[in-house]
């Protein structure tokens, strides 16, 4: 791995997770504020994350195993915000009904 490749790869890996965070936060803000724009922004963030995964897979010197792991984890990131959100809502439902 050349010095430039090291720098590019590590920054891409950081960006990959950072975009996952942006996706999660924007998704929540969209659901909270019933904002279609926010929700769309969250999906754009996820698309950028997927793009980062593709760039990592296509252009970095990581071994194939790690590239597969990054792409697979990118797929796993997709349902985390909506599933967590739905789960949180279902947990809170009975309490809201009581109050």
């Amino acid at each position, binding site marked *: 791995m050349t010095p430039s490749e090291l*720098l590019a790869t590590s920054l891409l*890996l*950081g960006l990959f997770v950072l975009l996952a965070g942006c996706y999660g936060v924007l998704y*929540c803000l969209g659901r909270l504020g019933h904002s279609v724009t926010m929700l769309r922004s969250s999906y754009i963030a996820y698309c950028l994350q997927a793009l980062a995964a593709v760039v990592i897979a296509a252009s970095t010197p990581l071994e194939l195993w*790690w590239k597969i792991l990054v792409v697979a984890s990118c797929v796993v990131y997709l349902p985390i915000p909506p599933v967590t959100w739905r789960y949180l809502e279902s947990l809170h439902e009975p309490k809201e009904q009581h109050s």
Partner: protein
Amino acid sequence: MFRSQQLALKYFAAAVTLFGIMVIAGLLSATYYLQDGFLLNKLDFSVAKMLHIDTMIIWLLMGFIGAVYWFLPIELERETEGIKLAELMFWIFCVAVAVVAAVFIFVQYGPATQTTLWLINQGRKYVEAPRWAAIGVVLVVLVFMYNVVVTAVKAKRITGIMAVLMVDLVPLFALYLIAFPAITNMSEDLYWWWWLVHLWVEATWEILIGCIMALALMQLLGTSRRIVETWLYIEVALVLGTGILGLGHHYFWIGTPSYWLAIGGFFSALEPLPLLGMVVHAVYDAGTHRMKTTNKPAFYWMMAEAFGNFLGAGVFGFMMTLPQINLFTHGTQWTVSHGHFAFWGAYACGVLAVIYLALQKSRNLLQVQGTAWKWSFALLNIGMVGMVGALLVSGIAQAFYERAMGGSTLQAFMEAQRNPWFVQGMVMRLVFGFVFAAGYAVLVYDLLTLGKRRLAEKALGARVMGGPA
């Protein structure tokens, strides 16, 4: 107020004091990089660094113990069993920490003998405290375990949180025993030593802070037990599922078999996943409560914990955790950057949240108000983000010039240390260190005067109006 809660306040006071010593030792440690010969042969870098890291571990541990002593009587609706013993252990703990710190500062090191090991320094990174003090830590944790377990049993009330907490206390105690053996084989020694360091930090402490946050959420937001316990179980499963074998990322370069490269890389790559779930949960809580709470500092520090954990452990961790990258980054300022951010996010913010909660109750404040907490919150977080950003720049310069270009030779190391990117990163780290220190000073002021300032203002107003002071 229960005696257990009074003890908790003492633990918080000790924790915040040690937090301050950690900050001073951190500023000193940062200065060595900029001024050759700074305090040479008086207080060497190794001593300042040791003080910085050890006080960090102890102040967080004291914060956790204090938090549990605070919530225990609330959770179990009775006084903590063996409270007298717990109070005695607190003072022993404080005296031991003070003596060890004094020995570190004034004696520093001794010959490679059993006497040194028992009285001065065990010589193992992060657990340098001499053996007598290490035994003291074991006793403190044992008494702490006794307090928690016996109180729960006598109360005949083993809630979900209590069950998780009690199970977690076993590895919290048992893993610390790894601080004791003096193994001469370096690989073997590091293999077990990482059990203590990693499994404390990324397993038992995670669970402990999870339990504490669950109890804090019930008190702060009135969240139902069902919700916090369900979420705690999920967190425990996910954190342990990824965190335990994530240990492997410390085994890459210490002489362990190469299969650890695959195990460590794989599980470390999964570690950000549950952290994203926590961020979602934090935003959900913030949104549903519309940021309205009677204790904004506690609430903001809890939010900071979720985001700090994600950024520090998740983003900064994933940048450097895969073996091919880690080959170049381990042991550089890049790692230091990740370590600072992750500890701050995962633990320090949580402890500060609980301290604010406890002070609100102990001082009978309906609402925690003022602007000081906002200043301390902003300065501490800006200081921390600035420091980790600067350390990241220095670390990248090291990985780039020393490791990837220079091939990790001594000459490459020296050249990287003189590289402008590295040096400027170090300068900015110190600058932001002072910002952080200013935040700490405001935090102490706020904690000391919280709830008292308004009374003082009222008294002053009454005097101005001619009324009784």
